[in-house]
């Protein structure tokens, strides 16, 4: 498989009155063609900002991408002039957002919001675009698309709106769809519908998917590879199997252990990660996770552990990754 998009050492910072928030601080990852990549982390870890940086949609001010490269189709998206990046947005890379209720314009019909990218990127006429819009709505499972096109967002339920968002994202046959917490605002049964739909469509059209979520379960089912983020950095990367079966970063391990699981016998006590997520404005020296970490050693306070391979295709940013990995393998066996 060829690499579709490569994020290299991305740094996006927010310059606020109180100080600089390093929301994304040296993040690198790559997405292969046709692959589904998961980006997992808690709120404020920089996962959404890294995705918005790809599209260059981070609000400026206060946000600014201060370093790194985003190579897509052989060119650095960060260096493209505005007119060129607009040709990438919606056409090559499309986005699905967290809140379908607020992500669609309340005063425009669904038709207008669906057809405008078709008219812009595929130079379709009004009637062509309309026909295509009907087809797309059918494809995402919206009954009675002809009538629905004439309606406004408030006349749809949350799940239906997310389908509309997916239809819009798919409309110009993009190579990559970035889904930023696509199901967080939805109920669990609707969540399953939406994720299945996205996965099926991406498989059908060979579209790459970047799924951003805080829910470890969501990516387990759908992602080929997973990146775990903490405090503006990727701290572990691997195949879904690697990450879930052999976590080799204490944070990943902690996340997996802290959620109760339906498939395992009930434990007496949950095993939480103690402490609070760090303040991105005043990060401690060394590893950002050190203060909450059970495996911390003296070195963790001095150096920031680099993201390095622990086995083929499996990377961890922890000095004791090997120990964790072998423990996990023993445990699994």
């Amino acid at each position: 498989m060829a690499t579709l998009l490569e994020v290299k050492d991305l740094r996006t910072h927010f310059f606020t009155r109180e100080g600089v928030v390093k929301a994304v601080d040296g993040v690198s990852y790559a997405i292969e063609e046709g692959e589904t990549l998961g980006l997992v982390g808690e709120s404020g870890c920089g996962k959404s900002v890294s995705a918005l940086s790809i599209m260059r949609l981070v609000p400026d001010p206060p946000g600014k991408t201060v370093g790194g490269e985003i190579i897509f189709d052989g060119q650095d998206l960060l260096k493209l002039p505005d007119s060129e990046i607009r040709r990438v947005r919606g056409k090559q890379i499309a986005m699905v957002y967290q809140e379908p209720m607020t992500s669609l314009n309340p005063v425009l019909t669904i038709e207008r919001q669906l057809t405008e990218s078709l008219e812009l990127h595929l130079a379709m006429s009004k009637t062509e675009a309309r026909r295509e819009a009907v087809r797309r709505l059918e494809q995402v499972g919206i009954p009675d698309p002809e009538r629905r096109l004439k309606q406004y967002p408030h006349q749809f339920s949350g799940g239906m709106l997310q389908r509309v968002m997916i239809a819009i994202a798919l409309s110009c046959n993009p190579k990559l769809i970035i889904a930023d917490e696509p199901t967080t605002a939805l109920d669990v049964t609707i969540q399953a519908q939406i994720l299945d739909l996205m996965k099926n469509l991406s498989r059908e059209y060979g579209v790459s998917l970047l799924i951003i979520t805080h829910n470890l379960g969501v990516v387990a089912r759908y992602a080929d590879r997973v990146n775990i983020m903490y405090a503006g950095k990727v701290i572990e990367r691997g195949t879904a199997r690697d990450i879930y079966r052999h976590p080799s970063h204490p944070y990943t391990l902690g996340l997996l252990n802290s959620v109760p699981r339906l498939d395992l016998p009930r434990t007496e006590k949950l095993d939480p990660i103690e402490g609070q997520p760090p303040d991105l404005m005043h990060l401690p020296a060394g590893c950002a996770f050190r203060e909450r970490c059970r495996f911390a050693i003296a070195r963790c306070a001095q150096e920031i552990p680099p993201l390095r391979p622990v086995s083929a295709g499996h990377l961890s940013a922890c000095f004791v990754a090997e120990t964790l990995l072998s423990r996990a393998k023993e445990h699994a066996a």
Partner: protein
Amino acid sequence: MTAVERTQREPGDDVLIEVKHLKMYFPVTSGVLVQRTVGYIKAVDDVSFVVRRGETLGLVGESGCGKTTTGRCVLQLYRPTAGSVLFDGEDLCSMNGRELRGMRRYMQVIFQDPYSSLNPRMTAGDIVGEPLLVQGLATDRRAYRERVAELLSLVGLRTSMADRFPHEFSGGQRQRIGVARALAVNPQFIVCDEPVSALDVSIQAQIVNLLEELQEKFDLTYLFIAHDLSVVRHISDRVAVMYLGHIVEIAGRNAIYATPLHPYTKALLSAVPIPDPVIDTQRERIPLAGEVPSPLNPPSGCVFHPRCWMATAECQQVIPELREVQTGHFVACIHAPGYGSP
């Protein structure tokens, strides 16, 4: 007495809360000068259950199913349209405002949103201490301060934090303040209304553990409302599943997760993703078509029938009552094994 009441409450059972035929209809009004009622949102429609002393009853369902409304009706924060709520045998629904204020010493609530549930103009200490003042539980200034400090350390906060305002705390810490406030009056019963769903994953477990420790320490009884089935399984002794204002299934924790009987429960459980790609792909999935209908205009018969893959013509007519099909396992579906004729 219906079958429900007889069997859910067995002789010798130490029942603390008994909810009977609870209904909460919110009127929908229309009209220009004279408001007249044109319909009702049946948020809770004939719900009955018991909570035994010292146990945790989990109440799960999707948004809009009426679980939060049920919790608030139990506490009489909403006065129910019909039905009764017995607290230790006394009917809360027939009490007046003054009597109810007295009852608040025994029953408390923890809210979902750690931001809107704390008054931004009060310090953490004031928030935790307010119930003591309201209920007249603080004899003097020193006792008050000591009790506030005790409560804060009980929930894992430093006593020096008492002078801080809510916005100076993180979400998890705010939720701890909410727990301390609920504990202040030494209640017997606490309604936990989605206490962890607004928190980050790594923080959720901290709060769940805290709630469990406190339950053990003070012999608390919980009604635990949530939409996260994994958390509910972890914390509950028994679980009730709600759909569109009705309880469709109640059973012991193990029974309901191992052998769910209602089709909705089955679908709900199968939709929960498992954080393990190998196991997750091997599970049986029951996709649910369509969306939850409006509670303003619920379907006839069994409210779940439009989305149910087992539905028959009968389901459109008969409202299935909650029946005990195995010991302690109640279900409201005419197709459930052992349900008998409708």
